[in-house]
């Protein structure tokens, strides 16, 4: 198993020379996400370690194979957090997998996404070159933003080696309230509240109840609960962790699970099956047998896009790109990985 920078570089270089596809792996918790591909495994599981963490500077740098849990434990001690509340989908999740998948959790709508917190990366490109982009500071416009380009690219543009993330202070207090509402009212209320200064840090609607999390000082959350109304729930932390980790009952299903992004204020979609909503209505999960073409057309009609999150025996996992966009995607892929050896086909069949 490749352990250090030089070993990993050597393996990529070898694959480049022989035009052999590599399948980049680490904790294998998000392996299911994206298209199924073949290739010689390139494991980053041993490329671990936090290399720089200074609480006062609000950033942490670590090697990509570092377990996410190790990072969260280190920063928790200083009352800091990863603002985007990343899903693990398994205890072996690594920071590299988190960035490659680019998935964010419940706090996303208020605190930003993984990509918003990327300050810098080191990568090995498809020619085996070790490159550094971005840095440790929040404001940095030197050169194109290659660091953020890596986020969500599913390893198709480079092997992530080291990552610097921006951190945020943890709120002193969090409380969650539940209110019984019909779907239309739930969507309307979430967006009405999002238009106020109330520190709402998460929202979730299960078809009957709307759950809203407030984060701030105790007096602030209390004041907001008085405005919003509803019942405070116990075990707020565990509730949101279950949503983040897809351990909530809804996600336990044999049906294909669709992840649908729409403008938050979009009325309920005309799809069959069951669904839940997060992010003020901007993220909708559907467990449905609806045919992909029909579903995507419906989602497009409200200016959204859809991806088959789990249960994907399909060719087209992510929403199809326009011809112009596909052309640029292929050229970018070629710019970073001319031999097409890094997770080829993981995102789209075309590259």
């Amino acid at each position, binding site marked *: 198993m490749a352990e250090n920078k030089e070993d990993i570089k050597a393996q990529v270089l070898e694959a480049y020379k022989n035009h052999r596809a590599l399948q980049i792996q680490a904790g294998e918790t998000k392996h299911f996400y994206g298209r199924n591909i073949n290739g010689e495994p390139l494991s980053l599981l041993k490329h671990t370690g936090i290399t720089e963490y200074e609480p*006062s*500077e*609000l950033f942490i740098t670590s090697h990509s194979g570092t377990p996410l849990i190790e990072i969260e434990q280190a920063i928790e001690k200083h*009352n800091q957090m990863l603002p985007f509340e990343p899903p693990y989908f398994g205890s072996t999740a690594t920071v590299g997998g988190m960035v490659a998948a*680019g998935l*964010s959790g419940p706090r*996303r*709508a208020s605190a930003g*996404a993984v*990509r*918003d917190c990327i300050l810098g990366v080191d990568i090995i490109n498809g020619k085996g*070159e070790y*490159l550094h*982009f971005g*840095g*440790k*500071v*929040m*404001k*940095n*416009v*030197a*050169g*194109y*933003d*290659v660091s*953020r*380009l890596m986020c*969500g*690219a599913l390893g198709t543009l480079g092997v992530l080696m080291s990552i610097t993330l921006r951190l*945020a202070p*943890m709120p002193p207090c969090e409380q969650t309230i539940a209110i019984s509402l019909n779907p239309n009212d739930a969507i309307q209320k979430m*967006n009405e509240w*999002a*238009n106020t*200064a109330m*520190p709402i840090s998460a929202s979730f609607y299960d078809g009957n109840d709307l759950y809203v999390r407030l984060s*701030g000082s105790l*007096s*602030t959350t*209390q*004041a907001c609960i008085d405005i919003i109304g509803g019942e405070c729930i116990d075990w707020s932390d565990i509730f949101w962790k279950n949503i983040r980790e897809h351990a909530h009952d809804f996600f336990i299903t044999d049906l294909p699970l669709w992840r649908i*992004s729409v*403008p*938050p*204020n979009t009325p309920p979609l005309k799809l069959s099956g069951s669904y839940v909503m997060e*992010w003020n209505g*901007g993220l909708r999960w559907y467990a449905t047998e609806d045919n992909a073409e029909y579903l995507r057309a419906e989602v497009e009609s409200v200016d*959204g*896009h859809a991806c088959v999150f789990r249960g994907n025996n399909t060719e087209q996992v*992510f929403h199809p*790109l*326009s011809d*112009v*966009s596909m052309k*640029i*995607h292929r*050229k*970018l892929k070629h710019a*970073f990985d001319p031999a097409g050896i890094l997770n080829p086909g993981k995102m789209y069949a075309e590259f």
Partner: protein
Amino acid sequence: MLLWSKVYIDMSKSISLSILTQRFHQVLPEEAVLTNKEQLYPYESDGLTAYRQLPRLALLPDNHDQIKAIINICREFQLPIVARGAGTSLSGGALPHAEGVLLNLAKLNNIIEIDPNNRTARVEPGVTNLAISQAAKPYGLYYAPDPSSQIACTIGGNIAENAGGVHCLKYGLTVHNVLALKILTIDGEILELGGKYFDSPGYDLLALMTGSEGMLGITLEATVKLLPHPQQKKVLLAAFDNIEKAGNAVTGIISEGVIPAGLEMLDNLTIQATEQYCSPGYPPNAAAILICELDGFEEELNSQIILVKKILKDCQAIEVRLARDEQEAELLWMGRKAAFPALGNLTPDYYCIDGTIPRKYLAHVLENINGLSKKHGLRVANVFHAGDGNLHPVILYDANASGELETAEELGGEILELCIKVGGTITGEHGVGVEKLNQMCVQFNEAEITTFHAVKAAFDENALLNPGKAIPTLHRCAEFGAMHVHEGKLPHADLPRF
């Protein structure tokens, strides 16, 4: 690839101005095609006036079809294109190209839609930054990134530079606030990116376009995020008798878990200048002052103010002042906002530098800047976004005094290299433009710069969009490297030097 583009651009020289004018008249009204010198002078430079260059022509389209037609003609004749918003770039990003077309987008200034329910604004590229917040105001919303130039600069320019402002410590830069873009590619095709949702399929091209200095495509339309106004704001001033203590206070506030909406520092020279200019009432003898704006829900704010006051006192502030009402708050901000014109009154010319450093090195770097200032015999004032470590040293000089401009540039370059040395970057928000090409060679190695060129080529193979900006050629780096040996190593040692 680069060689090819040179051949093409040489070809563009051979086409006469009258033929070009004729072609552009076929797609634009007569008054939208500017060719004579008097008409072209206003475009000669942007906010970085040390660089001047007239374009061959300037074009003022007012709709997408015209812009598309212009791009097609430029592609046919291989004419370089420099897009321009308000021309306030401070890095020469909007400096015209001698052989090319200056594409002025100021006429595309419609706000297409404010969508209060999804908290978005869809606008044309020539809309000014402030106009977006003004249009959103009736809905209790605003556009957060607020560069000091916000009354003039355009959203197209903001996106190209990934502009920041005094409030980006808490609310992010342009890249955190752009949701969707409609881009015209050099092939004359429309590339739609993002939407009114939280993520997009495919690569994060929105992030790639933001801060790309007009080199990957022309922004025709942008959808940006709007935020509700904070319920309350409070502004504090703290004065210190030395810079180190002020620097410690900045780190102290952030380490205690407070993210102020804005946290700005002014040094003594700037304090003196602003007092003379508009009397904001800053303590005249302080070595440095901090202006700290906190915002949020009322209950939250009250507890934060108590905490911040304590931190400031613990860091030995000689004075801590809380603005009692909006007027007093405005007065505290006034000096900061007037700092540049105020410094302008002290000197015939000034040169504003823009580097970012890890906050903990603030005192160290400011001290070293002071040393460099003495070494070169030019005064340097500091007024900057302390909360995110984004320095703006302002070098005071006189362009008419022989050699002073060159000295100022040399001093500026040394300050940027100092930023890199402590783990920072050569530009926080103003962009590389033509100004910091040499320092790019210090921050990035050959393979990284080659990657940037490859990204550019994926969008614009013949390098027609804003050529020569932002990313230095390897040749240039080799030449610059020949003069600059870093940490005992000669960069790009394998390239020929001539």
